[in-house]
């Protein structure tokens, strides 16, 4: 059966015609190029290089960025791209999120003119892959206390420290690395061949298996002076990147949920038990209607947020709510879909267990579910619960 994207309230009719054309383009890529290969990629633990090439050819990398060879699409289009990619696999969407929102965006927003002209065109075309180094082994939700530091050595910077859980790390040509220079967080562009830099891959994941995850290690890593991002100081730099990536995730999770719903619906209609399709039983119908209800709400949330992003009328808390809610319901939908598939649900013949395992990561990365609750808690009460200081 071809994929039938659940869109109960016809939310996609609110998109512009070119946004729908972008959707159809990415959907076609996922149907023809990604889904036939995804289980092999997961088993082998690789991100197929052909996907990088095609993402570049389609011109979707760094979707909402304008100029410097970037696509210049709306945030709604960027959301739709994330949704369609994640319908294929969260690892694929992660690749695009990291490239566009975490590596290209800081160069685009905080980079020098020379940095923008040099890096952005080849990142938009997919020729160069970027990664983003913020999280450290001991500093995840609390990046402000990071250990990685940079020293000004006169004619260069010296970087020391380690980053962890870095998507695209081992396949990237460049890393945007956040480190403390005289106690202040600054962004640095580190290139693959820089002396003292290595990016060993982390193995053994049960989640995001088609995505490369790495450590970034800096041992007296020499960085030319012109590779510091001049336009930002402090946590605002990495957080503004994360805002864009989290926005994309709030759409992406819907894609995973749609894939799981579609598979559960088809399976329940064809699976016969006690002489009737299991879809005819009230318990199964209750589960399917709950999925439809949550997906529809998530779609409306994501679409409305896209309009706020495009008009500029948004606050980070809006994004926290959408990321937290949409990943939460997608994960629960994946679990219920696995349940509806019975034992078959654990096989890679169906996409549900893969999405379920992926979404466990998505729930944790880019601000954990709990941290987003704390961000909203601070918004409501004015009390910051991370450090127990009022903001």
């Amino acid at each position: 059966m071809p994929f039938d994207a659940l869109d109960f309230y016809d939310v996609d009719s609110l998109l512009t015609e070119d946004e729908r054309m972008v959707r159809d383009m990415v959907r076609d890529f996922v149907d023809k190029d990604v889904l036939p290969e995804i289980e092999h990629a997961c088993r082998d633990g690789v991100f197929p290089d052909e996907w990088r090439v095609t993402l570049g050819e389609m011109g979707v990398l760094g979707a909402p960025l304008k100029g410097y060879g970037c696509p210049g699409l709306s945030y709604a289009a960027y959301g739709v791209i994330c949704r369609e990619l994640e319908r294929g696999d969260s690892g694929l969407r992660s690749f695009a999120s990291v490239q566009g929102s975490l590596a290209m965006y800081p160069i685009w927003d905080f980079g020098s003119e020379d940095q923008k002209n040099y890096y952005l065109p080849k990142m938009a075309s997919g020729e160069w892959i970027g990664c983003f180094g913020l999280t450290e082994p001991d500093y995840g939700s609390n990046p402000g206390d990071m250990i990685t530091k940079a020293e000004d050595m006169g004619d260069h910077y010296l970087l020391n420290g380690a980053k962890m859980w870095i998507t695209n790390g081992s396949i990237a040509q460049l890393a945007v690395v956040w480190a403390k220079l005289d106690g202040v967080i600054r962004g640095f562009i580190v290139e693959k061949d820089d002396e003292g830099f290595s990016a060993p891959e982390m193995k053994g994941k049960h989640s995001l298996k088609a995505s490369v995850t790495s450590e970034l290690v800096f041992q007296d890593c020499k960085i030319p002076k012109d590779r510091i991002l001049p336009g930002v100081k402090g946590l605002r730099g990495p957080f503004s990147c994360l805002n864009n990536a989290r926005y994309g995730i709030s759409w992406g999770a819907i894609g995973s949920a749609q894939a799981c719903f579609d598979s559960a619906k088809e399976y329940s209609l064809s699976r016969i038990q006690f002489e009737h399709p299991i879809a005819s039983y009230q318990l199964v119908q209750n589960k399917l209607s709950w999925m439809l209800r949550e997906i529809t709400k998530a779609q409306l949330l994501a679409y409305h947020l896209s309009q706020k992003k495009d008009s500029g009328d948004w606050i980070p808390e809006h994004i926290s709510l959408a990321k937290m809610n949409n990943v939460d319901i997608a994960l629960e939908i994946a679990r219920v879909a696995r349940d509806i598939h019975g034992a078959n649900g654990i096989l890679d013949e169906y996409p549900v267990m893969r999405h379920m395992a992926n979404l466990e990561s998505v729930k944790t990365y880019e601000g954990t579910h709990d941290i987003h609750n704390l961000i909203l808690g601070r918004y409501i009460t004015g009390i910051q619960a991370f450090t127990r200081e009022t903001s």
Partner: protein
Amino acid sequence: MTIAVLLKQVPDTTAKITVSGGRVDQSSVAKWSTSPYDEYALEYALQLKEAGAGDLVAITCGPDRAAKMLTDAAAVGVDSMLHVVADTTEMDSKQIQSILAAAIEHCGADVVLCGKQAADTNSGSTGPGIASMMGAACVGMVSEVMVEGDSFSALRASSSGNERVSVSRPCLFAFDKASTELRRPNVKGIMMAKRKVIETVSASDLGIDMGESQVIIESHDSPPEKPPGQKFEGADSVQTVVLKLREEANVI
């Protein structure tokens, strides 16, 4: 020099077709797509354009909804689009051919690519009929076409295998399934398509008098339900099964 590709919007091959009141219920069709053979024609028309054979215009004759198909064609690279807005449901083949031939003349095209038949009506008469009206060489069952100086070389199926045919302008190529699928658009193409304007005309704008339809469609019917399969069990039935496979199914 201008190349024209003719596109027809048909119910998607996955769409459910219902018949009501003796006619296919068009309002119940959930998804409309470009006829698959026309997509092959479009891909090879784009290749001709890229080889420098001329500008490429996409032409369709159909209701308002068919405009979407022309925008999709613009996204993959056609230079201009002409939409003859008309209700073709009760027209006969000759009327549609005369509209399209006039549209081709309107665009100044003398090389035409189209599908060998549409996925809905499957009549297969459009290409040859237009070629006849244009006084153009008609090559059918084409799976590839290339420009060679002033002429065109096409590969087509023949009774003894494939044959290569060379023709000069004016000419028309009716496409069978080809080896290269229609390319996927990219963001740049989609943004460019947004800026391209579809020229919209009516049959009378083209100055055609189509006359009355020579064909009257009496009614549409859904295909009869397939009879249930036959089931045989046990070694004793082998002879019967073999006989049926040979005599009835003609598969051995």
